[in-house]
């Protein structure tokens, strides 16, 4: 860019020799401004927002839309935090990057955990033995696991930790982790995984896992009660306390014992809650005064994963760098059908990770991050959200064949990664409501009528640009138990016509209302119109959406009243059963139907469990609950599938939710980014991402040629504003007191 400027400058000057003086001045000023801009930028485009990051090949540049609150694997449970944590820590298990349905694979383990079943006395029993009291998982670690270099592992000549301070004064010069000159590392031991699980039970950490996991891991509740609560000063070595269900057999082997059976436990072993935590790291972060400088495990994670955190300024950016100690890991050599053709296996067998660095810049405004993506300064259109809401029309074209990238963007080589999320958004009925709730035939028909009257397809088309699919059951696509085609259709709301489900007519809805005792939407006994109440979060439903919902129900004579409130009040109503129709959503913790069907399990009703249960519908069906209890402990197979089918049929018959859909997200990738397959469950996918840095530099320069003429115009305008003033001022100064007379 600078070279181009220098070569064009003399030509411009020569061409201007005959121009008026003012024009020459304007041009010179413009050139001067431009010169300074170019000198300061070097060869990079003027609008490059990453001037301080080297433009080398393997730097992934992305953005974060919100600041992570927690990076401690025991505390974090948000997707925008998992983006970082999942790259830094390595739990025992993970997911195959390409295969679908989702497949668990050993990551930090040599092989999948060995499972044994025990009776109350600790004797081995078979899986279906009634005497079964415990399930034991034996985990054998790989022998090449090493932690990232970190000052917590630095030792002095005597082999003692280098950075252990008695007072805050001693360590006051260290404000960030990179300030420590010495680092060290060591292998990951089995005890580190045990220590990590013990942290889940520490009341001072207040892990969201404690309540849930303590019902499964043997002795977790007692362990938690044994520890001193807050406020606590200094470091408490959790190794000094024993948890019944955890045992370290040797440096590389540990066992976890669960109460009873919980076949879904391996899925939890693939979550960052079960990451290894080195006790010396925990001790390091409890140095006096460290917490006052935000030197905590919550902000500076230490793991054995493919990346390590080298900069954490959540106000500006988070930078991850390749962990030089990362174990041998290779790109998978097989995937699902179609992956070969899509190029997802082009890197098969190559060593991971591909990236040297990953930079996540804080960028909250849609116009800003969308513009930077289009200008090539961000490699993908988002990490958690595919594109800014409201900019769909700029990015995509909707045709009968579906959604495709806008032609202008497609010409630039942008690729699209669609993903149906393993989650469900829904409006549910409160089954305890005196008007809509209950299990009589009339009430079922009333709810079914409302289901038919609510055209979810139209709703998705209008308010989600078609980015969602109608959910016929609580189980989303990609999760075992999700049935497609006629077998998966809800026969109470749809008919199978010409090879696809077709919503029943409004006439049938009206007939159902008659049978339910509400002809024309009026109570047959009192003549009062049927009015339904929707509890929604204020910001979630705008006036357009409200009017649409009012209109669709008015077609069957039903009136709607919205009861908007903030998140906390809406949630409170749901927990106390004071809602009639509520809105909710659930994203998969793990890819098992149990993780969705429990949304309708009776004991999960907040009113029954007196807890934060997820069955906000307060659906209570003994048959369903019995099926759920059996299904939960069965291994995958036809028997389990049959139970799931029966549960889904009960859900459909009882019409528990008004409507439900599974959201689709579409992510865009710049042409230099490879291996863009979305996973849906796992966030530990950064190691598979590859960048072609040369192509990026070339395209970025081409896409960001500055437009200089506005500088000329601005300068001319400025002169046009000032010049008349100067002229008038001079005229006034030279004017006589009484003009025209002597």
């Amino acid at each position: 860019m600078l070279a181009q400027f220098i070569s064009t400058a003399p030509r411009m000057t020569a061409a201007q020799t005959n121009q008026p003086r003012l024009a020459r001045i304007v041009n010179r000023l413009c050139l001067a401004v431009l010169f300074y801009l170019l000198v300061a930028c070097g060869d990079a485009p003027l609008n490059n927002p990453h001037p301080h990051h080297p433009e080398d090949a393997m730097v992934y540049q992305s953005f974060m839309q919100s600041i992570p609150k927690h990076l401690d694997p025991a505390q974090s449970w948000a997707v925008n935090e998992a983006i970082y944590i999942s790259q830094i820590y390595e739990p025992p298990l993970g997911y195959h990057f390409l295969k679908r349905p989702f497949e668990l694979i050993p990551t930090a383990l040599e092989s999948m955990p060995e499972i044994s079943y025990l009776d109350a006395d600790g004797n081995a029993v078979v899986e279906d033995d009634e005497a079964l009291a415990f399930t034991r998982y034996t985990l054998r670690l790989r022998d090449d696991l090493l932690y990232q270099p970190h000052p917590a592992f630095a030792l002095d000549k005597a082999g003692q930790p280098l950075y252990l301070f008695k007072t805050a004064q001693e360590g006051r010069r260290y404000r960030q982790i990179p300030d420590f000159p010495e680092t060290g590392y060591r292998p990951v031991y089995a005890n580190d995984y045990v220590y990590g699980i013990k942290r889940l039970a520490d009341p001072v950490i207040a892990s969201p896992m404690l309540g849930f996991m303590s019902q499964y891991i043997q002795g977790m509740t007692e362990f938690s009660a044994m520890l001193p609560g807050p406020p606590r000063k200094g470091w408490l070595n959790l190794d000094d306390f024993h948890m019944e269900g955890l045992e370290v057999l040797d440096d590389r082997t540990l066992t976890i014992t669960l109460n009873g059976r919980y076949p879904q436990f391996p899925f939890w072993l693939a979550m960052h809650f079960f990451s290894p935590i080195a006790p010396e790291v925990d001790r390091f972060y409890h140095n006096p005064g460290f917490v006052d400088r935000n030197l905590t495990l919550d902000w500076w994670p230490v793991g054995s994963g493919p990346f390590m955190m080298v900069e954490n300024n959540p106000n500006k950016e988070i930078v991850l760098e390749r962990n030089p100690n990362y174990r041998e890991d290779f790109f998978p050599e097989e995937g699902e059908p179609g992956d070969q053709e899509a190029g997802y296996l082009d890197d098969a067998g190559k060593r991971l990770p591909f990236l040297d660095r990953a930079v996540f810049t804080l960028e909250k405004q849609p116009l800003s991050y969308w513009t930077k993506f289009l200008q090539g300064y961000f490699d993908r259109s988002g990490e958690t959200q595919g594109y800014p809401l409201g900019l769909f029309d700029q990015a995509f074209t909707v045709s009968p064949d579906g959604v495709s990238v806008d032609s202008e963007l497609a010409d630039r080589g942008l690729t699209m990664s669609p993903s149906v999320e393993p989650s469900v958004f829904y409006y549910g009925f409160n089954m305890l409501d005196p008007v809509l709730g209950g299990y009589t035939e009339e009430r079922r028909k009333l709810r079914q009528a409302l289901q038919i009257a609510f055209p979810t397809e139209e709703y998705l088309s209008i308010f989600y640009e078609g980015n969602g699919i109608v959910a016929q059951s609580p189980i989303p696509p990609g999760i075992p138990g999700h049935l497609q085609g006629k077998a998966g259709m809800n026969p109470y709301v749809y008919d199978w016509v010409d090879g696809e489900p077709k919503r029943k007519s409004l006439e049938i809805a009206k007939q159902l209302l008659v049978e339910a005792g509400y002809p024309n939407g009026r109570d047959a006994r009192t003549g009062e119109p049927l009015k339904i109440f929707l509890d929604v979060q204020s910001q979630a439903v705008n006036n357009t959406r409200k009017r649409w919902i009012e209109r669709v129900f008015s077609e069957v004579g039903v009136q709607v009243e919205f009861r908007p409130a903030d998140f906390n009040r809406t949630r409170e109503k749901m927990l106390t059963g004071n809602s009639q129709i509520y809105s909710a959503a659930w994203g998969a913790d793990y890819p098992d139907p149990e993780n969705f069907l429990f949304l309708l399990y009776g004991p999960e009703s907040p009113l029954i469990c007196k807890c934060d249960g997820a069955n906000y519908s307060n659906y209570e069906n003994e048959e369903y609950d019995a099926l759920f209890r059996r299904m939960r402990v069965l291994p995958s197979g036809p028997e389990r599938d049959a139970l799931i089918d029966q549960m889904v049929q009960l859900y459909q018959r009882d019409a528990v939710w008004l409507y439900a859909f599974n959201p689709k997200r579409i992510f865009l990738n710049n042409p230099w980014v490879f291996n863009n397959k979305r996973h849906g469950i796992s966030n530990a996918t950064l190691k598979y991402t590859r960048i072609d840095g040369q192509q990026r530099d070339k395209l970025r320069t081409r896409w960001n040629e500055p437009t200089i003429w506005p500088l000329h115009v601005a300068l001319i305008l400025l002169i046009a504003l000032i010049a008349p003033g100067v002229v008038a001022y001079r005229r006034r100064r030279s004017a006589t007191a009484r003009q025209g007379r002597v």
Partner: protein
Amino acid sequence: MLAYIVRRLFYAVPILIGVNLLTFILFFVVNSPDDMAISQLGAKHVTPEIVQAWKQKNGYDLPLFFNADAGGSGAFTETIFFTKSVRLFALDFGRSESGRDISADVSNRMWPSLAVAIPNFVIGIWVNICVALLVVMFHGTRLDRWAVALFVGLMSISYLFYIIGGQYLVARVWKLVPISGFSGDEHIWKFLILPILVGVVSGIGSGARWYRTLFLEEASQEYVRTARAKGAGELRILFRHILPNALIPILTGIVVVIPALFMGGLLIESFFSIPGLGSYMLDAIQSQDFAIVRSMVFLGSILYIIGLILTDISYTWADPRVRLE
């Protein structure tokens, strides 16, 4: 003057207590400590025990204002309000609800805020005064009338329009500067051009119109006519006579905001991704982080009071007849 300042500082104490009390009440009217715990812990698998543990860890397990279980003064001191408020008066902001040290964040974030706010403030005032004086010089002419119309037009445009319009044109269409971002190194200037340009241009309408009014009032004074009769040039009259005499109302408007400059701007920092205190406050409100909101409101109140005292002091500098007693 010293006695006056001490007295004003003394008056500040009940004001600060009142501000703190109001913030506390407003926040907890819509948010209970349980709500805060849930918003911090996430919505999944949150049991009452976990909520209680979080409240205990963060000091929200006490009653809000009155602790009936505690005896004597403990009934008032062993409450959330007292424990969270007293430390503020020692400028100990404690930790945010997510565990970060607020003082450390404030000291880091004030520099980006100042980097934007000071040039914006200085250049803005300078441009507004110059434009206003220029217009005053042509008072009664067509230029004056068009300028006033232009000022009203500029005032009527939303600040958001300036920001988004500036970003769209300058950064997206013309690609002259980054659309947003910040850098603490030698590249800082390229991130500041656009926010400063937007800040200055958006302020011209109201600023220049206000200053024009002040200057016009002074321009009709007899001392101006006398100066002109003595042969003083227009520029000399404007800058040496009118401007100093119009300073009192100008100082009233600008000195008060000087200490608050480092609190940054909510919108400009948010839209331009400047990691300053303005965006810090906005994020805290969105994430219901009461510790940060309370600290920032308290800090803002202190700075505002300092600004008011500085304003009074500046009067004595601008007009030697003013005495602070």
